[in-house]
């Protein structure tokens, strides 16, 4: 009986034939700039968003250096206020929102459903160029001195701020269109392009979360586009749509803005959760503890997430009745994330666990996301939020989720899918060091900020009471460790792109569908028409059965 090579072992260098893949099929700039291949578009998004992560991260490091002393350290108040705003804008819209869906979603969703490409490949390329144009306008705003309103652009300040408000909101408006187009593309792809045999309840969970995110993106982003459009009109033409003297209501802006921005935070975390589902099952070599629980909790987050926006406005002047409603809906949305956390943890039971770098990132995610999520339940408790809102407690809370949650999952994805995307393996020990440094650096940076918030330090403060200095110093040193961890990780990954040992088709012995094809995949994703015999989480049989 001939043994089937399921591609788990690395390919010895001298034996590696030059197999044709999406990477080497053409090398010209034009073949990348005008590509309609979803994999190449995903890679371009990955590079663009990584650059933005570095830009936003540089701002963060500078802000933290400023906070080494209570007064001026390296910049004045004008610069500080612009820098924290640009940090928020770049991180939220230029990195966090597109990071997983537009890069990994684009690359892997068609493969995971056995399709040749997305439903609208040219539209996919267009969404990348729209992203670049939006990013360009944000850079223009930066070059013109930046904006200082905070990433939330609250009126009436944003209507009168002496800063580059209009280019910034124009850039974000345009970026919104990239998000919407990608969302429509992925929804239609999931509905219409699943291969025979890939039913809704038989596809990898990453596809489900990308689908859920695409629904939220498509519905919520237009409301943001509109709110920022109005801020732009108010700033440029002084139309006073939120000016009390002309019949307006400044608090109404907050309702419009948060109606989008609360679902936006779910846009930022759901794809990360999809990655985690894949990583946990692969490295535990085990089926997900409850497929339906993950699916229904994804849909639950997507829909209930639209009803909670008022919890950002508990002290903004709403009635007690309204606040109570938002308090309940916020408690209802929390349970869906808890369901996922329990499902992932229980998945490991009776598994066969291998602790590789992606799973190490899962552990970082588990601890940090749960910690951050529990503080989310805490701030959703109205009476407590009166003290915490607009303080460093909230800043710590959302960084635990965004960085401790989404960013660790992004790093997990980067490592998990590195062999599939590049055909090479990264160095495992370097990965362990990187993951440990990321976790330690992150915790040291942000845990003290909970204590700062408890003590009453408000956010967006340039100057602070000197009694807070020790905690700030600890936080800044943590940021240096975190910054170094990123540079370390970027370093070995780039080296591995060129020098890493060649990986087989399925180095992790996974059952998910992207591992049925070669590493890297060919231009049309599969050499032959794919036939997925097993469900994506069936580890009851050895990997040979995938190709029976």
């Amino acid at each position, binding site marked *: 009986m001939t043994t089937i090579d399921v591609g788990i072992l690395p390919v010895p260098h001298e034996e590696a034939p030059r197999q044709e893949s999406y990477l080497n099929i053409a090398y010209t700039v034009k073949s990348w700039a005008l590509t309609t291949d979803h994999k190449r578009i995903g890679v371009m998004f990955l590079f663009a968003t990584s650059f933005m992560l570095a830009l936003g991260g540089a701002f963060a490091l500078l802000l933290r250096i400023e906070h080494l002393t209570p007064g001026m350290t390296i910049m004045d108040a004008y610069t500080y206020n612009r820098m924290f705003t640009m940090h928020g804008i770049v991180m939220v819209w230029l990195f966090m929102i597109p990071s997983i869906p537009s890069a990994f979603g684009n690359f892997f969703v068609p493969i995971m459903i056995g399709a040749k490409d997305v439903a609208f490949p040219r539209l996919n390329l267009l969404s990348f160029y729209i992203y670049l144009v939006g990013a360009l306008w944000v850079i223009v705003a930066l070059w013109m001195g930046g904006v200082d309103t905070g990433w939330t652009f609250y009126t009436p300040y944003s209507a009168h701020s002496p800063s580059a408000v209009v280019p910034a909101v124009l850039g974000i408006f345009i970026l919104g269109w990239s998000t919407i187009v990608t969302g429509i593309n992925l929804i239609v792809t999931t509905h219409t392009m699943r291969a025979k045999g890939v039913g809704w309840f038989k596809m990898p969970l990453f596809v489900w979360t990308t689908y859920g995110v695409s629904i939220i993106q498509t519905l919520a982003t237009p409301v943001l586009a509109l709110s920022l459009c109005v801020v732009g009109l108010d700033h440029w033409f002084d139309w006073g749509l939120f000016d009390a003297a002309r019949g307006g209501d400044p608090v109404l802006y907050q309702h419009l803005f948060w109606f989008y921005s609360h679902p936006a935070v779910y846009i930022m975390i759901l794809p990360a959760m999809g990655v985690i589902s894949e990583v946990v099952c692969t490295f*535990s*070599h085990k089926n997900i503890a409850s497929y339906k629980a993950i699916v229904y909790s994804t849909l639950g987050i997507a829909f209930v997430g639209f009803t909670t926006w008022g919890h950002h406005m508990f002290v903004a002047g709403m009635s007690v009745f309204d606040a109570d409603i938002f308090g309940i809906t916020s408690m209802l949305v929390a349970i869906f994330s*808890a369901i996922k956390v329990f499902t992932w943890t229980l998945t490991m039971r009776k598994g066969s666990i291998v602790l590789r770098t992606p799973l190490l990132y899962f552990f970082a995610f588990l601890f940090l996301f749960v910690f951050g999520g529990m503080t989310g*339940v805490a701030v959703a408790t109205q009476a407590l939020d009166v003290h915490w809102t607009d303080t460093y407690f909230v800043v710590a809370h959302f960084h635990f989720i965004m960085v401790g949650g989404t960013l660790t999952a992004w790093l997990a994805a980067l490592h998990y899918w590195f062999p599939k995307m590049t055909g090479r393996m990264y160095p495992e020990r370097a990965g362990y060091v990187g993951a440990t440094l990321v976790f330690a650096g992150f915790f040291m940076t942000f845990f003290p900020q909970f204590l700062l918030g408890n003590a009453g330090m408000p956010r967006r403060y340039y100057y602070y009471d000197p009694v807070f200095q020790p905690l700030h110093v600890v936080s800044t040193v943590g940021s240096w460790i975190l910054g170094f961890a990123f540079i370390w990780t970027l370093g070995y990954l780039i080296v591995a792109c060129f020098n890493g040992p060649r990986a087989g088709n399925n180095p992790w012995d996974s059952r998910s569908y992207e591992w049925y094809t070669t590493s890297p995949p060919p231009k049309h994703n599969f050499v032959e028409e794919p036939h997925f015999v097993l469900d994506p989480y069936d580890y009851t049989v*050895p990997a040979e059965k995938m190709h029976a």
Partner: protein
Amino acid sequence: MNNLLRGWLNLPPQASTYAQDVDLLHYFVITSTMLGSVFVFLLAVYYVFRYRQRAPRATTPRVKTSAPLEFLIIGGLQTLFLGFWVVGASMYNHMQTPPSDAMPIYVTAKQWMWKFSYPDGRASMDVLTVPVNRPVKLIMTSRDVIHSFYVPAFRMKHDVVPGRYYTAWFQANTPGVYDVECAEYCGVSHSRMLGKVQVLTQDDYTHWLEGHPVPTAEGLIGATATSGGDLAKTGRAVAARRGCFNCHTIDGQPHIGPSWAGLYDSYVKVDGGRVVYADEAYLTRSMMDPQADVVLGYKPVMPTYRGILQEPEVAALVEFIRSIQTQPFPPSVTLPRVEPLGSGQPQEPKP
């Protein structure tokens, strides 16, 4: 125990009546959620060891999680979270509802300072002086952008919005000086928009009311300027100057507009059938948005005073209307009653 946890969590002193309740809820929420997180994490670590891969390429059983276990976990957690809501919402309700005997103080926020107007007519900047053990309500508005009045030691915070008057309250329980911070980004000097709340003992407060500076632990602060006389008396002068008495009486007789006598703290029937409670919010809204709640039986002819009345004038008018709540002025002349609304046609307001 309270102080131990307060220390560990780096919380400020509990200087208001509801601060300790807030902190107790805080301890409960944080402890239960942290215990839950630690449990999940330890379980995961246990599984990594217990179920580590023993043979390469080993297969695993397909495990279906028991439905009763799932429901137990989900049900238990949701009950806990909703429990947080029940306590938190009722506490929030208490924190947002000033007691009826609370002493009003008018707050105007402006880039980048706080101005306070007291009922006795005096005003101060950046230092709020209040007596201990008396409920105080702050009626707040902004001159420019949104600010937020935050006293960490009281666990109290409320946004201050231009064109609107919002009320927040506290009752300080310990004499001392506490920080006030602006908690809504408002421009370049946002982090310098600081103030102090000076909580005085009853004796010291009486002393202060008589105009003597009061020694505090941080030295003499909050020397105040008086605007000369009773805020309510000032309010009467404002009403005369601004033409309010063209339509409103203070002796109970309805005229073009309803009388101010007995108005404060009463229930008013408005056009459309609703009944509204006449508190400071109603009074200030009536000055800023007169068409919002027109009293039943009156024509909608009142013009808006937004941008016309200065904030101290609004404060003074409110104080004046409060002062004639139970003791209206005697009528000096009997006024003709204007015909109540008949066909419901909107009328032109007088300029």
